């Protein structure tokens, strides 16, 4: 059994806020759910499946109760920032299996103005917690090794931020709208070697939501049709410390699974949403997904190759996490939303990809250099 073509994304909503001192986290979940329902032309009573992750206060039971949902299927898988890319795949599975017909997925939170839930730790805690692994330094360790093995440079990484900034200038909601240069990135303060401040994504309050449904229901609604045709997910960790290799992510497994199910190849993709917690993460994902060979990501991203209308692979045309939005330090949701906008033809005209009929939304979650998940979704305009 395959999920190919079984589930449509009929509603999307990205909260316009990037700073929400006057709202609660639960309220933000409700606002994005309402926004996605209105985008689809549905009401709350239509929802029979609900998906949320660790950002939902109290988990799926408390959140469903707060929202007043009555569902017959739910899933609270938490794999950090890619949770929503996993939820989309799982929602498609549930819809294909008849377990629900209209699924809601929400993400929201307030890292700037509220309290963030602590990161869960496992059996490794005594052996690792003292060493101060953070997102910045574990992504830094991966980038350092990539540079060592393949000669990747900070200038090449900077091009990823430059491309994101070219897109963000057209997004009125983007947190950072100024176009930047390679020199600007290299001159920004070093945070954790070799990552400069401008290699890092923004921190924003906010959220987003999706409505996933059957083909029949999607056809009865108002939005252009966008369907899931492939999904893959994978986990990677040090696994006892054997043959440690931080130059690739679990995307080397999730990507091929998704492409195989979709029956397409990276060459067919017209637009790519790639989780950009850090510039270096984008470079690694482009290699892992097969857009270029391992070690050649630096050459691939240089010279504006990710800028819409200029380069060969337009990416993150909303400005991405690097410039626009990274709600709750979890970027998977906004990756899906911009991919759907592109496929609907609803991206900003300055960044809309012509004849955009096939897109990828992909991300990793957790700590890339330690333990992480990856999820790849391939989406098609019908």
């Amino acid at each position, binding site marked *: 059994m395959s999920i190919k073509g079984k589930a449509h994304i009929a509603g999307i909503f990205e909260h316009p806020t990037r700073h929400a001192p006057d709202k609660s986290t639960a309220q933000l979940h409700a606002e994005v759910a309402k926004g996605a329902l209105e985008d689809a032309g549905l009401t709350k009573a239509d929802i029979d499946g609900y998906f949320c992750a660790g950002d939902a206060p109290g988990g799926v039971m408390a959140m469903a109760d707060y929202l007043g949902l009555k569902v017959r299927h739910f899933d609270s898988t938490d794999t950090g920032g890619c949770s929503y890319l996993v939820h989309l795949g799982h929602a498609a599975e549930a819809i294909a299996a008849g377990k629900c017909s209209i699924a809601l997925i929400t993400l929201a939170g307030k890292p700037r103005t509220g309290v963030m839930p602590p990161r869960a730790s496992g*059996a*490794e*805690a*005594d*052996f*690792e*917690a*003292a*060493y*101060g*692994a*953070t997102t*910045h*330094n*574990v992504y*830094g*360790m*991966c*980038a*350092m*090794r990539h540079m*060592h093995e393949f000669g990747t440079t900070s200038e090449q990484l900077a091009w990823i931020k430059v491309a994101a900034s070219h897109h963000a200038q057209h997004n009125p909601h983007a947190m950072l709208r100024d176009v930047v240069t390679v020199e600007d990135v290299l001159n920004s*303060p*070093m*945070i*954790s*070697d*070799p*990552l400069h401040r401008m290699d890092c994504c923004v921190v924003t309050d906010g959220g987003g939501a999706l409505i996933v449904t059957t083909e029949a229901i999607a056809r009865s609604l108002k939005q252009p049709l966008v369907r899931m045709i492939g999904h893959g997910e994978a986990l990677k960790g*040090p*696994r*006892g*410390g*054997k043959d*440690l290799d*931080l130059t690739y992510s679990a995307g080397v497994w999730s990507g091929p699974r998704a492409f195989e199910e979709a029956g397409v190849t990276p060459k067919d993709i017209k637009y790519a949403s790639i989780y950009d917690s850090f510039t270096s993460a984008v470079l690694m994902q482009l290699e892992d997904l097969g857009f270029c060979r391992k070690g050649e990501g630096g050459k691939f991203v240089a010279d504006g190759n990710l800028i819409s209308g200029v380069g060969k692979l337009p990416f993150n045309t909303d400005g991405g996490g690097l410039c626009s939005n990274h709600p709750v330090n979890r970027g998977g949701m906004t990756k899906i939303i911009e991919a759907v906008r592109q496929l609907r033809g609803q991206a900003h005209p300055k960044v809309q990809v012509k004849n955009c009929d096939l897109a990828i939304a992909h991300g990793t979650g957790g700590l890339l*250099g*330690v333990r992480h998940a990856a999820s790849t979704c391939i989406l098609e305009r019908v």
Partner: protein
Amino acid sequence: MDSAVKYPKPQGNPETGHFWEQTAKGKLMIKRCTACGEAHYFPRSLCPFCFSDKTVWEESSGEGDIYTFSLMRKSASGPYAIGYVTLKEGPSLLTNFVDCDPSKLKIGQKVKVVFKPTDGAPLPFFTPVE
């Protein structure tokens, strides 16, 4: 982090208690599976490779080389160098590099284990040997 930093005390559990008893004696222990022959870190009772329960404690040389590192410059407790060491015995482990000039760290550099105190068992760290 330097020696002024207060490190968290290991909580320990029935599976890992022996490891912490040995760090108190200045020994870094790894686990080796007698069924498949593979060594691993951090220690498990069941081998993470072949899932045999025939794992035994083995003292590591405490010597290895730097697989990768990153100097974290934005930290309330001051800059620190996090990284992975690949031990001579094979397994790689996450650690901090201490008692050194972190701006001189290099991938491939030889390092050895040193122990730093906590309110409980000492914790292993690594420092360059050259």
